[in-house]
């Protein structure tokens, strides 16, 4: 059984148009107000197996958060079907809460003026975690996320990064089988991001926790996820394993040559010169047209080389190109 199954999910928000001016407001009293439909999610379908770690990405307003809200049960879809942990979220919201952990990066589940520990104690009670399990789990999470010094400090005194770490501990306390994370690393420093990524990977490996993550940080996607679901305007653009995404969308690779020649140049079909600097040449290679080995062989034959660096374009560039609707080969190096 899939941990998360989404089938032809649609959500359209309906809003009433506000009339302009006094005359418009007066007319509104006697007429039905005009309505405006805003589709947020359109015909979205995907399945996520237990233990999978999936990045759910898209530009702002793509429908990511709306989909996550539907999957947590706090938003009803207009049509379509979804099951999370075998439950229809909007029908069994409270039962589902026992199986899922949620982090909405900007929205706190901790009580602002109280010590972190007080909120965690409450969450343990709400999820009926027995005291010994709570103690051992808290000890492990507190160590992983390095919040031992924060436990007795009021949430109001924590930095954003410290608060997000405490939020994630709160979300993991009841050992959810499915984690829905909306921008979980927002505001985290490099160390905290690394700790979170390691912990999520360990959770998935050891407890087969399913992770569905939205993030604008491609580092999260690369280090946590094995699959990418990309949406825009509420529609599925692609759903691929991360490796395949790399393979299919990274058809352009970058080669940087360090040479003994002051003004190096290299003319090969299918290879574009990106930059020429003293003793340095940067090339973009369309690997579908010209194998990378041929470029390296030609460079070795024609130039006096001191170093060669072959680079993939960053995932960020790949995703940006997909958002722009560009063909895979047009992805810039």
């Amino acid at each position, binding site marked *: 059984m899939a941990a998360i199954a989404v089938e032809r999910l649609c959500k359209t*928000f*309906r809003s009433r148009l506000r009339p302009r001016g006094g005359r418009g407001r007066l007319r509104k009293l006697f007429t039905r107000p005009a309505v405006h439909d805003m589709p947020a999610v359109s015909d979205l379908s995907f399945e996520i197996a237990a233990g999978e770690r999936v990045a759910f990405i898209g530009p702002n307003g793509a429908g990511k958060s*709306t989909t996550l*809200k539907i999957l*947590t*049960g*706090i*938003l*009803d879809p207009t049509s379509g079907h979804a099951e999370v942990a075998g439950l229809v979220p*909007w029908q069994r*919201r*409270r*039962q589902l*809460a*026992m199986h*899922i952990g*949620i982090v*909405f990066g900007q*929205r*706190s*589940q901790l*009580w602002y*003026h*109280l010590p972190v520990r*007080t*909120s965690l*104690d*409450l969450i343990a*009670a*709400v*999820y*009926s975690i027995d005291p010994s399990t709570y103690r051992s789990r808290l000890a492990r999470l507190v160590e992983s996320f390095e919040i031992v010094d924060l436990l007795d400090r*009021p949430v109001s005194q924590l930095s954003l990064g410290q608060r997000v770490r405490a939020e994630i501990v709160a979300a993991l306390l009841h050992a959810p089988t499915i984690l829905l994370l909306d921008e979980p690393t927002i505001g985290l420093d490099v160390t905290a991001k690394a700790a979170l990524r390691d912990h999520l990977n360990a959770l998935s490996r050891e407890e087969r926790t399913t992770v569905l993550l939205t993030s604008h940080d491609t580092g999260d996607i690369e280090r946590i996820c094995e699959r990418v679901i990309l949406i825009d305007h509420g529609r599925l653009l692609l759903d691929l394993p991360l490796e395949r995404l790399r393979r299919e969308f990274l058809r352009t690779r970058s080669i940087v040559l360090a040479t003994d020649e002051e003004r190096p140049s290299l003319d090969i079909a299918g290879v574009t010169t990106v930059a020429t600097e003293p003793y340095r040449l940067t090339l973009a290679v369309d690997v579908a047209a010209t194998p990378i080995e041929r470029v390296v062989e030609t460079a070795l034959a024609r130039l006096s080389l001191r170093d060669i660096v072959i680079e993939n374009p960053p995932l960020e560039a790949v995703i940006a190109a997909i958002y722009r609707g560009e063909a895979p080969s047009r992805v810039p190096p």
Partner: protein
Amino acid sequence: MSARSLYPLLAYATLGWRRAVTNLLDLLGNVLLYWVILAIFWGLWSATPLHELGTEFTQERLFAYLAVTEWIAFAVGLPYREVEAEIQGGTIDMRLARPIPFGLATLAIWVGEAACRSVVLASAGVGALLYALGTIPLPMPSGALLLASVALSVILVLLWHLQIGLVAAWLGMSAPTFWIWQKLLFVFGGLIMPLTIYPAGFGAVAKASPFAAMLFAPGSLMLQDGAEHAAWTIGLQLAWLALSILCAVAVERAAVRRFVEHGTSR
């Protein structure tokens, strides 16, 4: 409701109690204001020839009445603002995605918070009564009935705060509704003076309103002795409590329905 389901509610109430303790400055400010109000009205009633107003109540009785009604008003505070802020800020999402119903959890926190505030304010009230009257005029048949009546009042008022807070689901804000409701509570509830002093017609309307069960009913235990009156008071409060629970459940369900249909982000 099973004992197991009460445990999380107890945890929420404990959190509310701790929150009140943490917010000590606010609590002390309320105690100070409570004393100031009691002092002003003690002075006012001491200078007022009450017999000329046609009331049978003494200054001492009216002072004790005010001590009770103000105790309730201060013990409750302004918790509706929390729900309003959660709706406006969208943090209600996190509360909705919990295994405990939002309204029940919120009420449990508020009950814990009000309980803590009530204990502190009760001590302040007892101190004020001892200072002004030299005695505590415990109602008949017992002080325990007064405590039960005050507890019912606090829960009643909190139920209305929950509904007022949830008004933000439709209007985007709750404050205007609250200010109107609060003025009605003060006037029809008899915050300062017992409803029995009001002109007959107005007093009858006020007594028939739910506000009377919130302030006048427990306050009247300081004015009128006898088991019959105490039973009538508690009975009236229980009836309004049952109705208020039904209203609160309906409003909470309607608000949650609105959130899940239209989203919480404004």
